[in-house]
């Protein structure tokens, strides 16, 4: 198919107009919004319960470049919620398994596969090439590392979290005065409260809903549909009402990460980034036999 040659911006491929037409007709979206998506890049840290649905909807919507960072391999116990992986990819790196699935969904998306553990030595260089960062991780240390890195790189961090029947969603470091993760939680929590260490359980649909909302927020940021105000969304699958929206403080001048030089209180410690526990998973195989 021949492309018309003129100076106005166009989507890369003629059939992209068909593929994305249903969102391009939306008020405030249009060709302009689609071009912004095409020219944007998003990095997703964690290709698990949150990362899978987030990647799926970012790819389907036509984000130009997606980075997938995850050093884990797929296990059977993941499949109850990590819906890009299958029985056949058990044992493969999650980043590779997820990349294969979204390439099938939208072959036009450029994908960077990075089966590496994010740490303080590599975070800035890995995250720097992308416009938006999605925190889809499952542990507190990486959440602090991602927030501090997003501050250094001046990029918005769309953060999702899920545990049991609960979910949380927030964009940190948004615009000129959105708080960072450390503005709100200056120090990592007590290890006893950090559910990631133990296997506390998680309902798959909860990660699906939060991961989907992360993709939505990223798409709003990229297309200019976001109002630029940070708020925190709380979800509980069993509560009525299930969702609660919370008005958040502004960036804190005293924040050790994003505060103003001379007013900062406390320091960022390397130990903030070190996982402080392991924890065993309940042995359901054995329980199954017991019953």
């Amino acid at each position, binding site marked *: 198919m021949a492309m018309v040659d003129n100076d106005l911006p166009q989507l890369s491929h003629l059939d992209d107009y068909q593929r994305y037409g249903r969102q391009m007709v939306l008020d405030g979206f249009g060709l302009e919004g689609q071009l912004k998506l095409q020219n944007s890049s998003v990095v997703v840290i964690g290709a698990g319960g949150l990362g899978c649905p987030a990647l799926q909807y970012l790819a389907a919507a036509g984000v130009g470049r997606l980075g997938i960072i995850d050093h884990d391999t797929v296990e059977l116990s993941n499949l109850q919620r990590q819906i890009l992986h299958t029985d056949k990819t058990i044992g493969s790196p999650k980043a590779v398994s997820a990349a294969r699935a979204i390439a099938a969904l939208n072959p036009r998306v450029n994908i960077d596969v990075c089966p590496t553990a994010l740490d303080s030595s590599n975070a800035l260089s890995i995250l720097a090439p992308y416009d938006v960062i999605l925190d889809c991780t499952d542990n*507190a240390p990486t959440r602090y590392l991602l927030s501090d890195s997003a501050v250094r790189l001046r990029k918005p961090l769309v953060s999702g979290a899920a545990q049991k029947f*609960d979910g949380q969603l927030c964009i940190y470091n948004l615009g000129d005065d959105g708080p960072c993760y450390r503005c709100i939680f200056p120090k990592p929590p007590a290890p006893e*409260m*950090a559910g990631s260490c133990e296997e506390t359980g998680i309902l798959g649909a909860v990660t699906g809903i939060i991961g989907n909302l992360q993709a939505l927020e990223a798409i709003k940021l990229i297309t200019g549909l976001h109002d630029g105000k940070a708020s925190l969304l709380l979800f509980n699958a069993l509560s009525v009402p299930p969702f609660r929206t919370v008005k958040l403080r502004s960036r804190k001048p005293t924040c050790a990460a994003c505060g103003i030089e001379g007013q900062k209180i406390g320091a960022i410690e390397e130990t903030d980034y070190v996982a402080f526990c392991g924890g065993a998973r309940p042995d359901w195989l054995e329980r199954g036999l017991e019953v």
Partner: protein
Amino acid sequence: MADTMTIKLVFSGGLELLFGNERNQSVLIPPLVPSDNSTHSSPSSSPSTPSSHNDILTGETKAADLEYLIYHLRDHLLKERPELFMENGTIRPGILVLINNTDWELEGEGSYQLCNNDEIVFISTLHGG
């Protein structure tokens, strides 16, 4: 004198485990409380019974604020491991307090004066994914 206030409470993000695994609870708080946040009753008393005014009025008093509520919850509602709820006279890091769906920092934190039917949410940040 003003009546006792009902304060609605929500514990979420795992914090409910410290409070008998009940997400939604409520407490009655008197309008005037001891300035030193002493909650003047034994931990075994019912959380719904406010300290009596006679107890309170023997010392210096202040209008009931969020700081007092935190002490009250620790002394009367918390079931285990107070060190996971309070630290250095305030809420432990990693817990966010919401006053009627607004970050407590926008409302004066501990110095916020409680009103009847206020909803106070305590959430622990989640880390799973």
